[in-house]
Structure formats: structure tokens, C-alpha cells
């Protein structure tokens, strides 16, 4: 190994990490197949190129572009999974899960239970979302709470290339359906590259930085807002612990409870609208499990309760920002 590569650890972005994870899984296991709109190389390997190169390498029989037919896409994935394949299906944007909810919720999530375990649905549903690209009301929703409220499907949302790779490999390994949420604005940020065959267990959170005063629980792009918040809080003498949830369903109660048990203060940050969001479940559990031991009420910071607005200043104000997190943490400390 040259000193050059030793000096600079390999970098990758999330897009490349997901691509590598699917490629490595396809190489290791010929039952791994992929489908979705524009997915194959004649169609440029997806609108953002996440699946670029896969069809050239593994063949268009295994990596298929589809018509615009989300019910048919998820149905095909479910069916193939019932007979031994491990399909990775793409629903281009999370809002388009709305045209495939029957397949996802009534079938993918339920067939194992309804068949008494005779069949199961080891599929991964990749989907992408997030504000920041001025896409307006129908292209940016975070809908993870819907799926977390559905028994029989797991939900993950990585925030780094390593986690994206490791969670994708675990999702493909998993014997049950996993919704894998990608975030558009963070696709291209380079960071430490994942090692081949690395795994991140589903249901395991990541303590990104330790602290003693307040626990910040976040995931997906909100990690990018929370990270500078932690630094700013440190400057203000507040020691924040930052937890990247990574898996929303199941979520890592153990890690989160241990942290909040220690700090006594908690804040949950997500881009989804606050009411009835994933933060409510976490807050409810924290209050239940740590009753009488919290120093301040659990704070929830989420998207404004409205459709995602187009106009830039409104779009920016819609989702929690670093300053909001800092402000909320200070308010928690003041209680």
C-alpha cells in the first residue's frame, strides 16, 4: 500500500456507497436483482445514477428499467421474493410510495404473518426524498412514520456513505421487507468510504458524539444540521450527545434510553412534519421509560405542519436548521 493511499483514507459519497453495496450484493448472490424506473444503463442507471453500471455488469435480465407503474414494480419485487429472489426495488421518490401503498402495506409487510410464516418477502424498497432542491409539495415528504406504524416492514435512513453501504447490505440480507430511505441533497457529500462487505445492523443507532447535558436524536439530513449545532453548543458550554438513529423501525431503544438516562434531556429532530411523526413515538417511550428522571420535557423538532413549500425562504424555514437545534437545546438547559 502506497504512502499516498495510507495518508488519505478512501473517500466516497452516499450515492457511490449505495451503488457499491448493491453491486457487491449482486456479485455475492445471484438471486439479488434490481428494478425501477430508469434503473438500467441505457436509461443512465437511474435519474441520479445510483444504479449506474449495474445492468452493464450483471445484465438487463437482473437489473431492469420499468414502465412508470409503481404498483407493478413493488408487485414484481414481492412475487420474485416469494420464489427465492432478493429484489431491490426503487420507488423514485418517497411521495410516489402513495401509488404503491397497497403492495407495500397490505402485501409486502403482511404476507409472512398472514401465511403463518410459509412465505416471506425479503425485498428492499429504495426511495429518495428531502427538501432543499425547490421541488415543492409533492416531491420532498418524509413519510417514515407511516411505515414505522406498519407491522412487518423495517425502515432505515442512513446519513453517511458507510452507513448507507452497511445498511443496504443488511437490508438485502434481511429476510423481511426493508424500506431504505435516501436523501437527495446529501447524495454527493464525500466522506469516509465503506469497506467491502461491511454491515450495519438494522435497529442499531450510532452515537456520533458523546455528551453529558442533552441528547440529540436525529437521522438522515438532520445529522448535517445537528453536527454543527453540537459544536456551537460546546462553545456555549453545553455538552450534547448526538445519536444518529439510522433505523427508525425498529429503533434502538437501548442506546437512546441509555443516553437520555445519562443526560436527562432529549430532543428528536426530523424533517417529517412534527405532529404524529416518528418523534412522537420516541418521546412517548422516553417519557414512559424515564418517568421522573428527565430534567426537562422531551423536545420534538420537525418540519412545519404544512405541505413542503416551493419558495426558497419558506422551504428553508420548513425543516429544522442548526440554529433551531441550538436554540432548543439551550431552552432545554434553561428549564
Amino acid at each position, binding site marked *: 500500500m502506497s504512502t499516498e493511499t495510507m495518508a488519505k483514507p478512501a473517500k466516497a459519497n452516499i450515492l457511490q456507497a449505495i451503488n457499491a453495496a448493491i453491486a457487491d450484493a449482486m456479485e455475492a448472490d445471484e438471486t439479488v436483482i434490481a428494478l425501477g424506473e430508469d434503473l438500467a444503463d441505457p436509461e443512465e442507471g437511474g435519474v441520479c445514477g445510483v444504479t449506474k453500471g449495474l445492468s452493464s455488469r450483471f445484465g438487463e435480465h437482473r437489473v431492469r428499467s420499468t414502465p412508470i407503474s409503481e404498483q407493478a414494480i413493488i408487485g*414484481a419485487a*414481492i412475487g420474485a421474493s416469494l420464489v*427465492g429472489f432478493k429484489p431491490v426495488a426503487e420507488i423514485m421518490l418517497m411521495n410516489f410510495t402513495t401509488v404503491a401503498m397497497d*403492495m407495500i402495506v*397490505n*402485501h409486502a409487510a403482511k404476507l409472512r*404473518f*398472514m*401465511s403463518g410464516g410459509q412465505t416471506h418477502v425479503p425485498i428492499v424498497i429504495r426511495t429518495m426524498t428531502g427538501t432543499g432542491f425547490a421541488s415543492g409539495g409533492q416531491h420532498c415528504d418524509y413519510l417514515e412514520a407511516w411505515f414505522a406504524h406498519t407491522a412487518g416492514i423495517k425502515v432505515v435512513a442512513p446519513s453517511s456513505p458507510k452507513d448507507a453501504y452497511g445498511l443496504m447490505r443488511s437490508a438485502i440480507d434481511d429476510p423481511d421487507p426493508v424500506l431504505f430511505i435516501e436523501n437527495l441533497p446529501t447524495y454527493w457529500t464525500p466522506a469516509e468510504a465503506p469497506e467491502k462487505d461491511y454491515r450495519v445492523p438494522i435497529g442499531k443507532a450510532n452515537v456520533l458524539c458523546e455528551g453529558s447535558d442533552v441528547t440529540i436524536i436525529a437521522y438522515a439530513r438532520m445529522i448535517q444540521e445537528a453536527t454543527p449545532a453540537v459544536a456551537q453548543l460546546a462553545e456555549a458550554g453545553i455538552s450534547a450527545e448526538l445519536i444518529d438513529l439510522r433505523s427508525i423501525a425498529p429503533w434502538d431503544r437501548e442506546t437512546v434510553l441509555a443516553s437520555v438516562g445519562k443526560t436527562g434531556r432529549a430532543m428528536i429532530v426530523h424533517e417529517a412534519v412534527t405532529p404524529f411523526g416518528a418523534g412522537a413515538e420516541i418521546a412517548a417511550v422516553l417519557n414512559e421509560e424515564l418517568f421522573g428522571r428527565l430534567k426537562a420535557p422531551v423536545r420534538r423538532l420537525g418540519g412545519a405542519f404544512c405541505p413542503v413549500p416551493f419558495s426558497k425562504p419558506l422551504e428553508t424555514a420548513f425543516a429544522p436548521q442548526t440554529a433551531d437545534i441550538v436554540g432548543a437545546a439551550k431552552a432545554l438547559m434553561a428549564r
Partner: protein
Amino acid sequence: MSNRAQPDAATQVEIYRRMALIKANDERSRKVIMNGRLVMPYYSPRGQEVIPSATFVNLNDDDYLCTIYRGTHDMLAKGFPLKDMWAEVAGRTTGTCKGKGGPMHLTYPGKGVMVTTGIVGSSMPIANGIAWGSQLRGDGRVTVATFGDGASNIGAFHESLNLAAVWKLPVIFLCQNNEWGEHTAYDKTSNVRVADRAAAYGMPGERVDGNDPFAMYAAAHEAVRRARAGEGPTLIEAMTYRFHGHVFGDQDAYMDKARKAEAVANDPVPRFRARLIAEGTATEEQLAAMEAEIEAQIDEAVEFALNSPFPGVEELKRDVFAEELA
């Protein structure tokens, strides 16, 4: 259509056996529910016996089926064992799904019964995926998705037929047009024949008399041949009639009395029985013995089911995921 495939004598008798099984099982089901020995939503397939019987004699055990709530006829014709079925609809641990699925979600992979769904239209997208698997493996298997006339108006029908056609999947879309979707007549929900929609996908489509075992056999035979030969999907619209209301308990006041009387008078089961005997394909004694055997099997299945234990509440935590919930 003169040189279409014809079932040989043994196959004709086998078709009849499946029809008789379906009819007897339906009559028993309604009786058991009527007597209060079982509580379940029951969607009678009575009147539609020919369709799966004459179709599935063209299939093997390892060919696949995706069916719907009104599907016991499909399942029995595909070989679903009676005991496993009865124990399931009775909600017992010995049921094929341990009692957790019930009549709308009967599953038996051993005979290729992969999915039974209660959502109109949903058998089709999943059938495509199973067929995609066969295409990838080159295993020569065929997948049949059955559904009703009403289901032909829902989005999943369109997406599924299109994808199957474009991907040339080894799948058969078997529409059982019984003239009704719940309380609504098919004519009120579409201006065209279901079969005529095949052209919208560049797929062969055929309307066939689904109460005629010969016509049904021939249509299915050709569709199975096409699928196995890699020539792609087929849409079959099998015309039939629903003898009862939509679900057990539905008094069917909305159904035209004369039309219903006519259909019942043309009951395909005794009609085919008489034909087999008239043409010397089978004897009265042979068929009577077959029917008695069927009754005995049903007796046994019902008793087995009703004497089996119910699942315990720990089952709520099992089969949600592979790993049991805490």
C-alpha cells in the same frame, strides 16, 4: 378453433372430480356456517367450478397460483389439501397459516398457492414477480393470476398486464367474469369486454365460455403453451355466473331473478356430469363413488379442523418478522 386442444377421457374425469370437489366443499362450507359451527366471511365460488378445474389440469404442482378471497375453487383445483384449508378457515393451529391468515389469505406453497389476497386487483402485480422469477431461472413454470370482472377496472390490472406484456412474462391473467362485483353489475362499470382489453397491451385475449369444460380447457391449454414457450402472457375472460350473493349472508336482492334462475338451471356441474355419462367417458357408479369419496374427505377435514386447537396469543408476536418480537 377446430384444431384446439381437447382433454382426453382421463382428463375429463379429472376435471369433473375437481368440479365435484369444489361444489361439495362449497355446499359444506355454507352448511357449516349456517349451523353456526364456523364464523368467517365466505365468498362462494358456486357456479364457477369449471374455470379453475379445466384450467389447472394443464398445470403442474410446481406451477404457481395467485388467487383472491373468492378462491377456494381455484385452490382446490390446484391441489390445496382439504384438511389444511378447513383448519385454516376454522382459525386453528393446524391450519395452513396456523389460523392467522383465514379464508382470505390461504397459502400453500407446496401446491404453488403462493398468495390469496383480499384486495381487488392485487393478485396480478405479484403474479408478475413470480413469473419473472421463473423467467430468470428458466424453470419453465407458469403463474396464473385469477381475479374478477370488477378487478379489471382497477389500476393494478393495467400496470400488471402492461408489464407482463413488455417483459413477456410466463403468466396467465384469468378473469372470472361472474357478471357481478359485489352488488354492481359488470355492464355498469365498463363499456367493453374484459378480453378486449388485451389488445391495449399487445397481448392475446380471449373471451371463453367459462362454464364449458372443453372451451375452457382449450383456452387454458393454449395460454399455458404460450407461457412455457416464452411467448408471453395471455388474458382469458372466462364467462360464468355467481350463484350466490357476494358474501355469505348477502340476500342478493339486486340480482335479476330470471337471469339467476337461468344460470342455476344450467348448473355446469350436473351438466358436465351428465355429459360424461352420456358420452361413455365415465359411468354413474364411477362418479357416484368419486363423490362419496369427496364427501368422506370433507367430513374428515371438517372434523379435523373443528377438533384442532386454537393458537395461543404468543402467535401475535410470531411471523411479523423472521425473528419473534419481544
